[in-house]
């Protein structure tokens, strides 16, 4: 079998950042192989994908030594645009990988860039659409698609360019289990067409039986090279030792009945009660909940398929969505949306959006009285980040930023914390840290976690709230 890509003695480091560096990595990827790159955060798997599609060294700068060839082309002397027809890339964030606003134009975008004739583009787009069975996604607005549908369009756009090699960088971080199944089918289709596929991924379960080869990276070097069969027969302990997420969630909580149910013993002490909680977008009822009691002090996972109404629910609960109808009672007291906004805080998926101040301490003190500095420092200690108090929030790592956001919420006297996908794209260790943190916030704080991460739920949640079609 011929070689699709060859990395020889690659060392690479990003300027000002030790994460993701590579140390003398050598790797050969054969044509037609489906390769999984795995390892803890910062092990360099994303860096490998960027070497393959030419983003390194042409877009992300850094110190690169060694040789990379993709289908016989030296990556350094080949312009990134020239590689576009050979290597296709799918990225993790659907927000930042679309160029057009309608799906058909998006599918044609890559081919248009290559300057193909109009008829050729149309026939390629038609064929891709038929192969992937996405006819009903044509001529839609990108803004009206669910996360899974967006990722399908991204894959189809790449596929229409007929690349020999396809690299996917954490393609499932925003997807629910059904959408992941859809992605799996797409990749199986590519495999059947004989394309070479390289996937960098934290979530491993969905790739079982699909990958021919698994490369485990550690600190920027190749640590183990398994065949697919070997790798997926390793036991869970082995996985934990390697810092990898277990590949099969013990339980798929999406299969539970809708409504709220306890999954761990929990001592009830009051509750947050919602009555006739209704919200509509135009004529469509996005949310319709007759009555719901969320136990105070619980850690409740909010699950449901993409587009089931989970984020509408949490936005209404936090008093952020204007024009919803319903009553919220906290500890026997009726709360208006304004009161809910005072009581609750949402930690967003992109925490950057909610850190404003120049130092961590100032950030935490924003919503507090001026005299409460000691209290703030105590709180930072409780969250394990006292040494960061002088740092600029934007200079911290993702996990640290999350902690600062939590600290600022607790300091402002918030009693209900809502987390939006707190573990998306995290490796085992970081996920465990987050789980431990969420579980340790104490009895006064009620935590809601919107998540697709079954392992996280298993580790720290006391209750499950399953929403489908806006109902429980």
């Amino acid at each position, binding site marked *: 079998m011929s070689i699709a890509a060859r990395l020889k003695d690659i060392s690479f480091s990003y300027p000002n950042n030790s994460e993701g560096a590579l140390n003398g990595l050598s790797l050969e990827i054969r044509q037609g192989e489906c390769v999984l790159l795995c390892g803890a955060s910062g092990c360099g798997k994303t860096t490998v994908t960027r070497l393959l599609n030419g983003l390194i060294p042409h877009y992300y700068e850094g110190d690169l030594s060694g040789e990379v060839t993709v289908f016989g082309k030296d990556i350094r002397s080949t312009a990134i645009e020239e590689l576009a027809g050979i290597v296709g890339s799918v990225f993790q964030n659907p927000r930042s990988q679309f*160029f057009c606003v309608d799906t058909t*134009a998006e599918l044609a975008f890559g081919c248009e860039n290559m300057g193909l004739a109009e008829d050729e583009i149309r026939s390629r787009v038609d064929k891709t659409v038929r192969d992937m069975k996405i006819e009903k996604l044509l001529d839609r607005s990108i803004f009206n698609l669910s996360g899974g549908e967006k990722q399908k369009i991204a894959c189809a756009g790449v596929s229409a360019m007929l690349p020999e090699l396809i690299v996917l960088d954490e393609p499932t971080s925003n997807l629910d289990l059904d959408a992941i199944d859809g992605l799996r089918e797409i990749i199986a289709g590519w495999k059947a067409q004989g394309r070479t596929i390289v996937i960098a991924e934290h979530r491993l379960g969905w790739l079982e039986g699909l990958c021919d080869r698994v490369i485990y990276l550690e600190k920027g070097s190749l640590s183990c090279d398994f065949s697919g069969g070997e790798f997926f027969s390793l036991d869970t302990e082995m996985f934990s030792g390697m810092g990898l997420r277990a590949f099969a969630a013990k339980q798929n909580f999406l299969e539970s009945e809708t409504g709220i149910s306890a999954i761990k013993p929990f001592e009830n002490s009051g509750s947050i009660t919602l009555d006739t909680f209704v919200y509509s977008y135009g004529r469509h009822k996005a949310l319709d909940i007759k009555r719901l009691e969320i136990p105070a002090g619980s850690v409740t996972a909010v699950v449901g398929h993409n587009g089931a109404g989970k984020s509408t629910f949490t936005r209404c609960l936090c008093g952020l969505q204007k024009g919803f109808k319903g009553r919220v009672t906290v500890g026997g007291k009726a709360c208006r949306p304004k009161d809910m906004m005072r009581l609750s805080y949402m930690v967003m998926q992109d925490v950057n*959006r*909610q850190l404003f101040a120049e130092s961590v301490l100032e950030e935490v003190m924003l919503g507090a009285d001026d005299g409460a500095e000691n209290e703030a420092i105590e709180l930072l200690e409780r969250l394990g980040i006292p040494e960061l108090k002088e740092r600029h929030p934007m200079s911290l790592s993702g996990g640290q930023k999350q902690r600062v956001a939590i600290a600022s919420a607790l300091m402002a006297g918030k009693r209900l914390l809502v987390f939006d996908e707190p573990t998306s794209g995290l490796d085992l260790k970081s996920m465990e840290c987050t789980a431990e943190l969420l579980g340790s916030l104490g009895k006064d704080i009620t935590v809601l976690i919107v998540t697709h991460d079954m392992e996280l739920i298993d580790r720290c949640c006391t209750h499950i709230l399953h929403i489908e079609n806006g109902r429980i």
Partner: protein
Amino acid sequence: MGGLFTADVENRGLVLDPRTKLLVMITLVIFALGGTGSDILLVRCVTVAVSVLPIILLITAGQRKKALLFGLIYGGIKLLEIFVVSKATGAALTVIGLCCMVFVRLMPGLIMGAYMLSSTTVSEFIAAMHRMHVPQQITIPMSVMFRFFPTVLEEFSAINTAMKMRGISLGGKHSGKLIEYRLVPLMVCSVNIGSELSAAALTRGLGVKVRRTNICKIGFHLPDGAVLLLAAAPYVLWILGMIGVVK
């Protein structure tokens, strides 16, 4: 989404060629804003008709609320200009007259701009520029810029939400720092997304030396003809007025 270049392709109503919209825009600038030929009565009348056109176009694009709002404001001020300004004297004349003049002249162009941006998709825009022989070096950076606006708006509203939850607002304790608190995260997020977006665009071949093709079908149809006819009227009447055929 009614933002810039984010036309909702699923229900967009009447579709005009981007070049038609551009011509209407130029006509509005020359006659409504520039006041060309305003000494000829017929030109003035037709200019009002062309000025109302953007509002009608907004309705055809399904943006009825916006159209109604703009229509009421424009109509009100135009009536004010016709009936009140002619009778006013002294300071009132200066103030009302000036306000009316600024609004009446600027608004049609602004409404047309709003309609153009909200009813054109990025690919239509690129196709139209291509047909007008504008070089790629200009159209591609522009299309990247337009693609980026809605994202920045989205970030901005998310940051606002976060600030509301933290109780940072006008009149609050930190109102002096409102702008700084908003700009820092906005810039960090925009830079992140912008760099991811350009990386994604590069891997899909944007910027290849070969001439880009476009499957987007644009062209002049019946509605374009009607709109162009109306847009041509002031030019014709102006010329006729100059040579003294009409008054």
